[in-house]
């Protein structure tokens, strides 16, 4: 029975853990760099890290998957993607599914497998691991992650609640993640930096940059308050390069504005998280484009997608190819590629301004105290909101649209407290947006934006191949 300081977790999970000092000692071992060290090195070198998502139910298959991707794709960080049952704390369902049909799981049930197997996976590859999931309350999973010796844990009380569950109150998820962050703070003092990535991708579909960044910054503020020292802020590629580059660059300036200096903040790009093109050619091109966007935006890491995204969880070879296609964009041969800096600066001005208009009132209300109550209130009021929320605890009144160039704008602001200047500029951007008569048609077309590019390609629809 282990006590991880301040982390309240289910007894059955706690009972199986090694003692806290052993966990810390194991995390301290030096045979492998921490994820934080890999990110710091990438930031210094100026070449982003590429990291695939990957997770299957069976342990042996999982080890083979990691090893195959490492051999063929050479990512600098590898992932344990966790199954949906574990994410929702349905640990028993996860264990049953693992017994009945491990291939039917959409991720690796780490809690069911236990920390020893986590260590086995970690030992099976050279790259350090991150646990990626989507748990409104990830405390048990976090405990097993630490015991497994894994030094990076994705998620936050907002970004792993609103897109990932129906009815977990924000107070519950924020408190769960506060406890997680506090443990990271203790470990940071012990000299073990745990990288905490905030899931700015949210619902992945037409997320306006300022909403993504605002949510991540609020989570990062909470994390920093608990002593977290290494924060990755993830932004989902929207597909309009000037806006995306601006958003990535804004992460650094916003971090300087809102976060204490001692926190290392790394901008991360998530390769397009929405409805993915179906042809291999367009999918590959989009994956490479994400890499180029990351490079131009100064991202420190890219979480890649694969050309099977539209179809289902990819096989190892396809996943490795996704890593390689992304990394191809970092070649010195493309040193000549630039982006229109004037357009980027304009986008960046407005992104930073919108973020301030969303975040500042919340921080003002919190007034230096823990911000969770103010955040909860803002979501309840709709002053913070996300599109297409899975959770009933965001109003989902904000409705995005793409402008004629593909940039993500606001069709409806919902109750977001944007200034008149912000609204005026947004409306200017939307002038000339390809409109159907009916909003739902137009929004559906925007959601399916990248499918239109498939039509330029031969019909090499994977389904027919």
């Amino acid at each position: 029975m282990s006590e991880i300081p301040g982390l309240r977790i289910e007894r059955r999970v706690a009972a199986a853990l090694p003692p806290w000092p052993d966990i810390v000692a194991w995390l301290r071992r030096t045979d492998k760099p921490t994820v934080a060290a890999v990110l710091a090195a990438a930031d210094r070198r100026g070449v982003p890290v590429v990291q695939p998502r990957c997770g299957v139910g069976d342990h042996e298959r999982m080890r083979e998957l990691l090893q195959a991707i490492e051999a063929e794709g050479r990512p600098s960080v590898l992932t344990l993607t966790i199954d949906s049952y574990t994410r929702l704390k349905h640990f028993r369902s996860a264990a049953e599914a693992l017994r009945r049909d491990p291939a039917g799981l959409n991720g690796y049930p780490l809690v069911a497998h236990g920390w020893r197997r986590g260590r086995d996976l970690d030992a099976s590859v050279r790259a350090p691991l991150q646990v990626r999931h989507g748990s409104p309350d990830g405390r048990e999973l976090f405990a097993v992650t630490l015991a497994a010796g894994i030094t990076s844990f994705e998620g936050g009380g907002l970004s792993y609640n609103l897109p990932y569950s129906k009815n977990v109150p924000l107070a519950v998820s924020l408190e769960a993640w506060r406890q997680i962050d506090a443990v990271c703070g203790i470990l940071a003092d012990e000299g073990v930096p745990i990288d905490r990535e905030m899931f700015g991708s949210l619902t992945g579909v037409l997320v306006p940059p300022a909403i993504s960044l605002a949510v991540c910054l609020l989570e990062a503020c909470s994390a920093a308050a608990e002593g977290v020292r290494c924060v990755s802020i993830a932004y989902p590629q929207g597909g309009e390069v000037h806006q995306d580059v601006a958003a990535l660059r804004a992460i650094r300036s916003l971090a300087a504005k809102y976060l204490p200096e001692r926190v290392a903040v790394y901008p991360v790009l998530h390769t397009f998280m929405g409805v993915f093109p179906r042809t291999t050619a367009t999918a590959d091109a989009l994956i490479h484009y994400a890499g180029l966007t990351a490079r131009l935006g100064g991202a420190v890491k890219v979480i890649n997608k694969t050309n099977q995204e539209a179809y289902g969880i990819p096989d190892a070879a396809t996943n490795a190819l996704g890593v390689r296609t992304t990394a191809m964009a970092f070649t010195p041969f493309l040193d000549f590629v630039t982006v229109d800096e004037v357009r980027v600066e304009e986008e960046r001005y407005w992104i930073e301004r919108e973020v301030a208009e969303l975040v500042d009132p919340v921080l003002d209300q919190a007034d230096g105290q823990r911000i969770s109550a103010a955040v909860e209130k803002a979501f309840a009021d709709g002053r913070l909101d996300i599109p297409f929320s899975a959770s009933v605890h965001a109003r989902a009144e904000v409705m995005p649209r793409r402008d004629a160039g593909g940039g993500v704008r606001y069709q409806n602001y919902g109750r977001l407290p944007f200034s008149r200047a912000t609204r005026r500029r947004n409306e200017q951007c939307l002038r000339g947006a390809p409109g159907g008569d009916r909003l739902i048609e137009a929004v559906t077309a925007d959601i399916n934006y990248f499918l239109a590019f498939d039509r330029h390609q031969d019909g090499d629809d994977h389904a027919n191949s």
Partner: protein
Amino acid sequence: MTTTSPPPRQVILGVARSDAHAVANHLIAMRLRESGFTVTNLGVCTPLEEFAEAHTAHPDAEAVIIGSLNGHAYEDLRDLPALRSAGLLQVPVIVGGNLSVGSKKSDRDHERLYELGVDYILGDAEQLPLLLDLLRAEARPPLSRV
């Protein structure tokens, strides 16, 4: 001369137990409402028992429509036979989405859902109003499967 409008047509909509994919669910609800349906949308991460409860609360619902995108459709609908044996969910169950894990699909994916008692599997959510109309036009014995 006044005509009374026909009574609203009820459907129950939601996403399977372990699945948090919300976008299609939002859009399907909007489209069904546009087509004149009254939608009880249970949203994401809805256990089968809650679909059954909703059906008990809305016995005139024409169908229970369940989306599943995360690959766990079969595992998440595993209790359907038990609920049906208990006399619940005596209503056409329509399922759609991405119904198995992995990027290679097989015929078994659908077969085993039909074996659980799923009545219709639709590839395209656009077809829902049409299917619902057909279901109403037919007497209860279900059509040959889609």
